[in-house]
C-alpha cells in the first residue's frame, strides 16, 4: 500500500510537471500562423510508417542509422514493459500484463534483449560523441550546452537500460530462488541472474525493488527533461512525420495575400469581386516568431540537432555561414525567449529583437541554393528551404533588401520579362537558320 501511494504521488508529480511544460509550449502555437491544412490522412499515415516507424531516412547513413533504428525499435517494445510498470505501481499487482499469455512472453523477451542492444548502441553513440570528432556534431550553432544536452540524454538512456536489465535479472533470480513462477521470458535476465545469487531472498527482493524504482523514476525524470532538450524528438518525431508537408520538395507555398494584391493591380475590376480585406494587413514573409507557421515551430521543437541537414548543405559544406540546423535551433530558442512575453502582453509585445538579424543573419539566408538536400535528408521531415524563402520574402518585400545582383535580376524581369537584359524581341533568335539532316 505504501508503494502504491508513493508511486501514485511520483506519477502525479511527473504528469503535473509534464502537463505544465507541454501546455506552455502549446500556448506558443497561438502566436504562429496557419500553415497547410491536414488532409490526406491515409497518405500521412504511410509517410509516418515509412519515415518514423521504418526509419527509412535514418538509414540514409546505413551503419550508424542501423544502431539508431535498433534504439528506436527497442523503445517501441520496451514501452510495453513501462506501461505494465505503471499499472503494477498503481494497482499493487506484479507483472500484471502476464494475462496476455504467449504475446506477453514475446514482448518481455524482446524488451529484455533490446535493453542490451540499446545499451550497446548508446555506448557506440557516446564513443562517437566523446572521442571521435564527427564533423556534423560541430558547427557555430553547437554550443557547449548542445553537447551537454546530448551527453545527458545518452547517459540517461544508458542508465534506463542498465536498470531494466538489473530489474529483469533480479526478478528471475528472486522468483527462481523463492520457487515462484517466472512470468515472461528473459534471455538476458537469465544470463545476468547469477549476479544476485549470493544474496538472501530478502536481499534479492531489495535488489529487485531498487532496480524497479530506479527504472521507473528515471523514466519519469527523463520524460520531464525531454521537452527542454533536443531529445524532445522522442515524443515529436512520429507526429512530425505524420504532419509532413506532402507537396513535392520543389514547391513553395503560395502567398494568397500577394495574389489578391496582384490581381487588383492587373484588373482593378477584381476589387469588387474579392472580399474586402478586413483583417489587419499582416507582415509579408517572416521576420520573427509570430510570422512562422505552426509547422515551422513544430519542426523546431522536433529538431534533434543531428546535423544531417548541414552536412549535405552545399553552402555549409563550402564554408558559408548558412547552416540549416541553426535556422531551426534559432527559431526554437527565439520562441523560448519571446514566447513568455507574448503570453503576458499579447501580440503587441516586443523586446526590440527579432529572429531575423538577432539570430539569423541576412548572409545566412542569401547563401541558400534551395537545393532541398537538407529537407531530403532530415530524418524527421523538417522543411528548411520554405522557412528560408519566407525570411527572404520579408527582406525583399518589406525592406527591399537583397544582394545587388538579385536587384538587377528583379529589374530585368520587370522590364524585359527575363532575368537578363535581353529584349523579348530576341526570344526567337535561337530558332534562326535551324536545319536538320534528313535521311
Amino acid at each position, binding site marked *: 500500500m505504501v508503494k502504491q501511494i508513493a508511486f501514485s504521488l511520483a506519477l502525479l508529480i511527473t504528469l503535473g510537471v509534464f502537463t505544465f511544460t507541454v501546455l506552455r509550449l502549446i500556448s506558443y502555437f497561438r502566436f504562429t500562423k496557419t500553415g497547410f491544412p491536414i488532409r490526406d490522412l491515409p497518405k500521412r499515415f504511410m509517410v509516418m510508417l515509412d519515415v518514423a516507424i521504418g526509419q527509412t531516412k535514418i538509414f540514409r547513413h546505413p551503419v550508424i542509422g542501423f544502431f539508431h533504428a535498433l534504439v528506436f525499435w527497442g523503445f517501441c517494445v520496451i514501452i510495453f514493459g513501462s506501461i505494465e510498470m505503471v499499472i503494477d505501481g498503481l494497482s499493487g499487482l506484479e507483472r500484471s500484463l502476464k494475462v496476455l499469455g504467449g504475446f506477453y512472453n514475446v514482448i518481455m523477451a524482446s524488451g529484455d534483449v533490446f535493453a542490451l542492444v540499446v545499451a550497446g548502441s548508446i555506448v557506440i553513440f557516446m564513443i562517437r560523441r566523446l572521442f571521435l570528432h564527427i564533423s556534423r556534431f560541430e558547427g557555430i550553432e553547437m554550443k557547449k550546452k548542445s553537447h551537454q544536452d546530448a551527453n545527458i540524454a545518452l547517459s540517461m538512456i544508458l542508465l534506463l537500460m542498465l536498470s531494466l536489465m538489473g530489474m529483469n535479472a533480479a526478478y528471475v533470480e528472486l522468483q527462481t530462488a523463492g520457487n515462484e513462477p517466472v512470468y515472461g521470458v528473459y534471455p538476458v535476465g537469465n544470463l545476468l541472474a547469477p549476479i544476485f545469487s549470493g544474496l538472501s531472498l530478502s536481499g534479492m527482493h531489495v535488489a529487485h525493488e531498487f532496480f524497479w524504482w530506479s527504472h521507473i523514476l528515471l523514466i519519469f525524470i527523463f520524460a520531464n527533461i525531454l521537452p527542454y532538450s533536443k531529445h524532445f524528438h522522442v515524443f515529436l518525431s512520429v507526429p512530425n512525420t505524420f504532419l509532413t508537408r506532402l507537396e*513535392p520538395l520543389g514547391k513553395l507555398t503560395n*502567398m494568397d495575400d500577394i495574389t489578391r494584391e496582384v490581381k487588383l493591380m492587373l484588373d482593378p475590376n477584381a476589387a469588387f469581386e474579392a472580399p474586402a480585406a478586413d483583417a489587419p494587413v499582416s507582415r509579408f514573409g517572416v521576420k520573427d516568431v509570430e510570422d512562422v507557421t505552426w509547422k515551422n515551430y513544430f519542426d523546431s521543437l522536433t529538431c534533434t540537432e543531428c546535423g544531417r541537414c548541414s552536412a549535405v548543405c*552545399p553552402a555549409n559544406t563550402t564554408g558559408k555561414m548558412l547552416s540549416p540546423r541553426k535556422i531551426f535551433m534559432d527559431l526554437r530558442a527565439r520562441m523560448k525567449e519571446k514566447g513568455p512575453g507574448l503570453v503576458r502582453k499579447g501580440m503587441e509585445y516586443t523586446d526590440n529583437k527579432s529572429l531575423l538579424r538577432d539570430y539569423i543573419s541576412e548572409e545566412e539566408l542569401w547563401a541558400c541554393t534551395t537545393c532541398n538536400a537538407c529537407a531530403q535528408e532530415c530524418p524527421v521531415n523538417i522543411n528548411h528551404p520554405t522557412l528560408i524563402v519566407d525570411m527572404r520574402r520579408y527582406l525583399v518585400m518589406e525592406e527591399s533588401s537583397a544582394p545587388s545582383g538579385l536587384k538587377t535580376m528583379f529589374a530585368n524581369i520587370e522590364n524585359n520579362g527575363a532575368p537578363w537584359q535581353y529584349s523579348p524581341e*530576341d526570344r526567337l*533568335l535561337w530558332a534562326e537558320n*535551324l536545319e*536538320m539532316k534528313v535521311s
Partner: protein
Amino acid sequence: METKKIEVPVMAELFARGETPEFLFWVGCAGAYDDRYKKVTRAFTKILTHLNISYAVLGKEESCTGDPARRAGNEMLYQMQALQNITIMNGYNVKKIITICPHCFNILKNEYPDLGGNYEVINYVQFLDQYIENGSIKLDATMLGNTRITYHDPCYLGRGNDVYAEPRSILKKLTTDFVELERNKSFSYCCGAGGAQMFKEAESGKKEVFIERTEEVLRSDAKIVATACPFCMTMLTDGLKYKNKEEVRNLDIAELIVQVMDLSPQNLNSQRNCSLFVKKNTGFEPSNLYANGHSRMAV
C-alpha cells in the same frame, strides 16, 4: 545527305490559322538567350521535328516564369509574371507543356496551379525517355561505345520532383560505361546556382560550390558529364574550365541524343558521333551570359 530547314511553329501564328498544337514547348530564358543553352534548345527542336510532334513555342510572348524572383523572395514579381503567363497560355487553350529547364518545369507543374494555371507539364527528359521506350527514337548501347558518361542530377528534377530514373535509362542506352557520381540521385550535390544564386555573387566561404561538384565529376573519370539544366550546365562547364579539364565534355542529354541520331548537318564526319570527342569540332564557345570569370552573369 539532305538537310531540311526547320521553321519553329509559333503559337500566335498557329492560333491565327485556327490550329491548336498538342504541346506548348516552353523554351525558358536560358534556352532563348544563353548562347550555350540555345544549342540545347536547337537540339531538342530537331528531335521534336524528327518525331513529327505537334507543338509550338510562345516566342516573343513567352516571359520569365518568375522562378528566380520567387526563390529570391520577390513573391510580388513572381505572381505578376505567373498571372501574365497564365493569361496568355489559357488564351491559347494550352493543355500540355514540355519544358527543357527544370526550374521552369517545377514552377509550371507545382506552383502555377495555385494561381489558376493547370497544365500537364512534362520535362523533356521524361518525354525523350518515353519516345525511346516506345521505339520512336532508336538508341543502342554501341552508339558511344564504352565512352564513360556520368550524370549530374539537377536539384529541381531530382529531389524537387523525383525524376531520377529517366535520365539514367537514356544514358545507359548510349554507353556501356555509365558511372554514378559519388553523391547521386536524392543524395546529389547542388551545382551552386539554384535559388537565384545564378544571379548574385556567392557569400564568402572556403570554396565555391561548383568547384566542389566539378571535382567530384573529375574523380569519376568520365569523358562526358551529362546534365539536364541550363544552370547546372553553366556551373559545370565553368568548373571544368577552371580546372583546365575541358577535354571532359559537359553535354545535355538532348545534345547526346541528337549526336547519336545523326540529326545535325554540322556533323559532317563520315563516322558517326566522333565529333563529340573532337574538341574544336563541337564549337562550344564559352557562354556569353556568365563569362566574367566568376560563373556569374555579366549584365
